């Protein structure tokens, strides 16, 4: 049983990272690495699908904060979908929904990116 896993798939110019398991100070660097890879590939339309994410601490939230400026300066966005109740509560406690768009499904999130093109 892995503690944390990231699965990536691309839909045209959109990249989806599905993160699963426990995102804490131990696993945050793995997530950060995957995001940095996308930025190096100049892929700035990013969906983080939280389906399967069981836990997040502020170290995990910090990863989102660390890349958003870079992404938006490049006219991209990072949108979040499929947050479970427990995980969403942590984002919510820290006011993330006012800075990031959250959607219930990946399909809907893809639509939002397409609609903005």
């Amino acid at each position, binding site marked *: 049983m892995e503690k944390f896993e990231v699965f990536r798939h691309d839909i045209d110019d959109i990249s989806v990272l599905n993160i699963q398991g426990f995102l*804490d*100070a131990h696993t945050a660097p793995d997530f950060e690495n995957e995001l940095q890879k996308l930025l190096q590939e100049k892929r700035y339309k990013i969906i983080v699908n939280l389906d399967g994410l069981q*836990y997040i601490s502020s170290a995990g939230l*910090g990863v989102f904060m*660390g890349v958003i400026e870079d992404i938006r300066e490049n006219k991209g966005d990072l949108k979040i979908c499929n947050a479970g109740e*427990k995980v969403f509560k942590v984002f919510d406690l*820290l006011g993330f929904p006012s800075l990031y768009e959250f959607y219930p499904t990946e399909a809907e999130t893809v639509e939002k990116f397409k609609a903005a093109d």
Partner: protein
Amino acid sequence: MSQNKTKSQKYRLKLPIDTANLDIIREFVAGIAQNIGFDDEDIHRIELAVDEASTNVIRHAYEGQTQNDKFILIEVKTFPDRLEISVIDHGKGFEPDKIKEPEMDAYFKQMKRGGLGLYLIKTLMDKVDYFIKPGVRNRVKMVKYLSL
């Protein structure tokens, strides 16, 4: 032999400072919280608060320190009406009063990272106290009441 519900019980967990141990710490406090009857939502709050305090010890307490035995100590006391959890290090200490609460608006405008841990702890737990003796014993004490 079953849990004595009327007296206070003590638990202690001491481990090396390594983020790989965060899940052990979370399971430890979750196990105790579950046994004394907290619901899943409160168990999650307790796990997260203790994770945040422990992450701080692992990341900050022994920065530039020369102690040989760098540890993190979790002390838990159970009471009929509450759980008291202390996260303890013997690192350099800090001045909790001088650490500003993140103003979330400005915070997001700067889009800076970090600084959320102490704020989360305060939000998640019913009572938080700091007892700081740099190099000797720095303790974050958190209390959560059972909703009866």
